[in-house]
């Protein structure tokens, strides 16, 4: 049905034209689910957008053949292409928050493709839209029809995107990282939904993802991309079980697998390093000019736990569960909190999720690392630089990085600099808030190994905040589960993973695909 051969994409907006996709070939038959997997910058989204006819920027050059149902899409007349877009080929994008028009109703957006491609009465449009919303399991579709995107949760918005894409019964659905921005439980539901649509309606799906686990459960064939080129392709089982290429092996090896990386840590006889007693945090919501802070929301409710020196504690929960707020509360970064927090060591340091936003892009690494010492005073410039350089070496970067600007670093290098910055204070406890979530799997693996090494060699305790149960399983011997601001369960990895007491923990585990071990 779809046959892409020898696709090249070049961007010419700078002086040197840059080839972003090279020699790309893919074939999708009717009713098949094919995956494209790769890390950021691999050209996977670019190729998918080219197939969907969405690369119309003037500075982009495309070569090759994209044949859909016997018709060549590249260089096709715009009006003819438009009659295929949204009708035979539909797209679901990554960010359900921004991919919907904020000022149009849900109903209008679900119907839109139908209004463009089919001639019907308004009643028929509405009827079809509501039926479609029901098909993708949107509750109360009649009510949602008149709502706006901001009134819906992330999961519901993605269902709206899918409903809008499927409204004309497309032959091919291109799904560009459709689950990446969603929580694990929602992610699992969306994958189920896509599977069901595929088997019920026979819609072929081209599924783009960086997540190999998702690709494996969903697709029959997979194409692995790296740096704009196809590395390997074939049936999913073959590629996963017997990868032929080095890169593929590396990629598969980096996937968190529910396998222990850090050994079990026995806390008996260890001294406590942090005690959190009945801690609550409130969040003020400004509701109007005359009533600031009138409505208050408790984001953390009565949290209590103890951490011991040298321990890696996992703090697990979905977005909005209050896990980040709890981390910030421990560091005293929030005002409106109650309860007691006892630190038995120097002030802990924090590492954040987004290594791009946390470092001043205009400064050099050395300047950033020595900043805390400069502020504190009492040390010479040489001492400061020497210490910074040794911390860089500790996180696996050589001294030459001292004089590099942070804007010239990759995501993984940035995160290492963030860790080195935390180490400058010689902390006994680091609070790591989703430190690997924004990184590609292979880089993620390196940062995890680094954290384990720091824990082992320097005895630094880590409060590891994450939504990813696989990574938490690898690192943590003790785990706290949070939901809507409350700690619903805490215990050892054995208790939490093999003997969960709370239904929410069970739900998280099954969404993450955990199979009980003996």
């Amino acid at each position, binding site marked *: 049905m779809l046959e892409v051969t020898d696709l090249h994409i070049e961007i010419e907006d700078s002086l040197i034209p840059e080839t972003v996709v090279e020699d790309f070939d893919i074939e999708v038959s009717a009713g098949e689910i094919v995956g494209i997997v790769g890390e950021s910058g691999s050209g996977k989204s670019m190729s998918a957008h080219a197939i*969907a006819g*969405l690369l*119309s920027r003037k500075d982009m050059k495309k070569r090759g053949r994209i044949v859909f149902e016997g018709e060549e899409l590249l260089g096709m007349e*715009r*009006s003819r292409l*438009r*009659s*295929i*877009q*949204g*009708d035979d080929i*539909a*797209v679901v*994008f990554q*960010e359900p928050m*921004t*991919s*919907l*028009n*904020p*000022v*149009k109703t849900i109903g209008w957006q679900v119907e*839109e*493709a139908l209004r*463009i*491609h089919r001639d019907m009465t308004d009643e028929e449009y509405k009827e079809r839209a509501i039926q479609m919303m029901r098909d993708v399991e949107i509750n109360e579709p009649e009510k949602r029809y008149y709502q*706006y995107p*901001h*009134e819906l949760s992330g999961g519901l918005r993605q269902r709206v*995107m899918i409903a*809008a*894409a499927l409204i004309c019964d497309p032959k091919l659905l291109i799904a560009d990282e459709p689950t990446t921005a969603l929580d694990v439980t929602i992610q699992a539901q969306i994958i189920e939904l896509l599977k069901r649509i595929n088997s019920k309606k026979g819609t072929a799906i081209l599924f783009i993802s960086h997540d190999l686990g998702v690709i494996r459960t969903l697709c029959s064939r997979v194409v692995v991309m790296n740096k704009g080129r196809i590395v390997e392709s074939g049936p999913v089982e073959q590629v996963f079980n017997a990868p032929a290429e080095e890169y593929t092996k590396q990629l598969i090896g980096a996937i968190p697998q529910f396998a222990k990386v850090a050994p079990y840590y026995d806390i008996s006889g260890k001294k406590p390093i942090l005690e959190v007693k009945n801690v609550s945090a409130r969040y003020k919501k400004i509701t*109007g*000019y*005359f009533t600031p802070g009138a409505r208050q929301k408790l984001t953390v409710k009565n949290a209590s736990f103890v951490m011991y020196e040298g321990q890696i504690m996992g703090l697990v929960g979905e977005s909005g569960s209050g896990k980040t707020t709890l981390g910030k509360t421990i560091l005293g970064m929030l005002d409106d909190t109650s309860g007691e927090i006892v630190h038995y060591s120097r002030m802990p340091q924090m590492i954040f999720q987004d290594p791009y936003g946390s470092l001043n892009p205009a400064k050099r690494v050395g300047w950033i690392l020595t900043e805390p010492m400069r502020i504190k005073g009492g040390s010479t410039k040489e001492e400061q630089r020497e210490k910074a350089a040794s911390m860089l070496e500790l996180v696996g970067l050589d001294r030459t990085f001292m004089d590099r600007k942070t804007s010239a670093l990759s995501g993984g290098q940035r995160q290492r600099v963030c860790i080195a910055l935390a180490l400058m204070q010689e902390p006994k406890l680091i609070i790591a808030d989703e430190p690997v979530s924004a990184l590609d799997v292979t880089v993620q693996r390196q940062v995890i190994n680094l954290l384990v090494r720091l824990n082992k060699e320097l005895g630094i305790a880590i409060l590891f905040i994450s939504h990813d149960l696989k990574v938490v399983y690898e690192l943590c011997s003790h785990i706290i589960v949070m939901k809507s601001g409350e700690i619903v369960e805490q215990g050892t990895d054995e208790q939490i993973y093999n003997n969960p007491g709370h239904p929410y923990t069970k739900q998280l585990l099954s969404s993450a695909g955990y199979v009980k071990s003996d």
Partner: protein
Amino acid sequence: MKTVLKKLASFIITVLLVTLFVFLAFELIPGDAATFRLGTNATPEALERLREELGLNRPFFVRYFTWLYSFFFGDMGQSLSYGVSVRSMLASKLPITITLTLMSFVMIVALSVPLGVLTSKYEDRMWARSLDALGQVTMSIPPFFLGIIIMYVFGMIIHAFTPGGFVSWQTDPVRFIGYMFFPSVAIALPKAAMSAKLLRTSILSERKLDYVRTAYSRGNSTMDVLYRHVLKNAIIPVITFLGMTLADTVAGSLVIEQVFSIPGFGRLLISSISNRDYPVVQSIIAIIAMIVIVINLIVDIMYRFMDPRMRERS
């Protein structure tokens, strides 16, 4: 209901503050209506008598609240310099100023929306860039100066209208509108240039957002994406700007009336200030303040209508 009460409260507070400030200003500057009427050679006794007659020797707050009280019931008092009721003086002028304001506002909208759309749609064409540059120049010309140029070119050279030959609405509606056209252009042009530029920038940044890509993926043409998706989002910041502009246009029209010799609020206000004729000045200021607040209220409502995210969730 709560919102309505809040708006009403801020309405009343604003009018009170504005009029109080004007009253205070009159108190601070030297001279009053009596000295102006009798001239510099008047005897102190005569001045005192006139002040007594006009009620100017009463304490400040008594005068203010007396004025406020009667204004509240629709009585704007007597002009101190002309001795006629302020209400009758304003009744003939208010429609002129309002017409001027509205005409220029309509021009601002009618010019800026198509200009903003066109200059963003054809952003890399030469003519669109020239228009953008021309707009940059236009918005930096003060309206009164533009008024003088227009008067000179269209009045003295082309003879499209007779400068100073104002015709009232009652005499000839067509010639009235015809005379008001050029002053409206003088007020509208700089503002239209600003709002066109704002709309252009807004459209260009909206076009980069994800939902636009979604719109294309459904088979929309470039035109459909612009009119069905982008424009409604892009116009939201422009509405706020137009609201502020409308309030500004009222003030702008006072100046332009001077340039084009239009007997509206502007000329009356200026002569009344130099005559220290505070009942007239107070009433004009209060009315203008009320107009501005009502405009803000309308903008607020429109804003909520255009942007569902601004509507209160029930």
